[in-house]
């Protein structure tokens, strides 16, 4: 009994540095992910449409990021603007439109981040972190299809990077869906597209062809959040080497009647 307890104590002492190292490694991983691995998307919460921020199952505090939201917009079936705003409801940012929109969009500026030689991401520009291995300016975009589309989605205002479905969206999961990624309204080649930002955030991206298109499968019979990431030139070279644009396209496939 005593021997067993003694062994346990010895083991704990021996393992403490390893445990500390593991915790540090995990913390480092989280810091790396937090710096550049998040997106924004729209999803239904308690029947209302919310703007969410995060990755995978982590939808983080969007309310504290409200000041970073540069635009929120709603459009009708003819893609004419509908007065739309965000309102805080508890821990959520809900979309409030005067009438039912067909499409809703948002833009969030996530700041400038620099990566130190030690691998840590800091929310500062290269001008403040001169030894940074990379420094990037981060923009997040989101388009949500709310109603049925009567015409193809055009390039929408403020959506510097945008995912557009080519043709009809299949109504059954597993079916192929062709999308086109636009950067500043033009096809973006080699944009990295992920089929499911929420349930497969570590999946291998597929790159768009020269015409900006890529065909993926519709992942879910429910909420789908497709993501595209594209590196563009920096508009502040002294502070950032590049601009990382991350866009989502979200839509829902209906479930069977109850």
């Amino acid at each position, binding site marked *: 009994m005593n021997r067993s307890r003694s062994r346990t104590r010895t083991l704990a002492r021996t393992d403490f540095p390893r445990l500390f190292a593991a915790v540090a490694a995990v913390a480092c991983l989280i810091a790396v992910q937090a710096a550049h691995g998040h997106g924004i998307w729209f999803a239904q919460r308690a029947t209302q449409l919310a703007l969410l921020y995060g990755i995978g199952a982590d939808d983080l505090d969007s309310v504290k990021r409200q000041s970073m939201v540069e635009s929120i917009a709603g459009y009708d079936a003819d893609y004419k603007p509908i007065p739309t705003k965000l309102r805080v409801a508890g821990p959520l940012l809900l979309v409030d439109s005067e009438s*039912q929109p067909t499409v809703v969009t948002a833009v969030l500026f996530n700041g400038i981040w620099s990566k130190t030689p030690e691998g840590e991401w800091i929310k500062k520009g290269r001008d403040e972190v001169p030894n940074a291995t990379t420094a990037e300016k981060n923009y997040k975009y989101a388009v949500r299809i709310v109603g049925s589309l009567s015409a193809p989605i055009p390039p929408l205002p403020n959506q510097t990077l945008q995912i557009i479905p080519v043709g009809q969206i299949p109504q059954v999961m597993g079916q192929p869906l062709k999308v086109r990624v636009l950067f500043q309204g033009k096809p973006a080649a080699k944009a990295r597209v992920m089929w499911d930002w929420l349930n497969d955030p570590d999946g291998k991206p597929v790159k768009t062809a020269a015409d900006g298109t890529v065909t993926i499968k519709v992942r879910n019979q429910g909420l789908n959040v497709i993501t595209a990431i594209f590196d563009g030139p920096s508009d502040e070279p002294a502070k950032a080497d590049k601009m990382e644009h991350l866009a989502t396209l979200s839509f829902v496939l209906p479930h069977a009647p*109850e």
Partner: protein
Amino acid sequence: MKRMQSFFAALLVATLAWASIDTAGAHGGTQPEHGGVVQLVGDMSFELVPAADRVELWVEDDGEEVNSAELAAKLTVVDGGTKSEVALTPAGGNKFEAKGVKIGKGAKVTALLTLKDKQSKIAANFTIK
């Protein structure tokens, strides 16, 4: 062999029981009660009744009638490329209505319900046949 049969019988009973629970959990009725068309949106059931000289909207929440006096509703009608809005007024019980309105066949109608908090909204889409 008998054990396997018992196992599968038990599995069948359990599956049927689960299926019946699932069905019992469905929200609201899908059958029109006022001669209109029903759309389910989450917990809410909307029945739109376009008549010759008026339009009615009946709303239930999770199978229970809402109090229309506590809510607000309007319709957006797209008919032959023309878009218009129709304000609905509470008409007792769970009914909203607008008199002197005729919605033609083929029109696309969105009913927008504003909830008690006067902020949250739920929409249902209809195509008039």
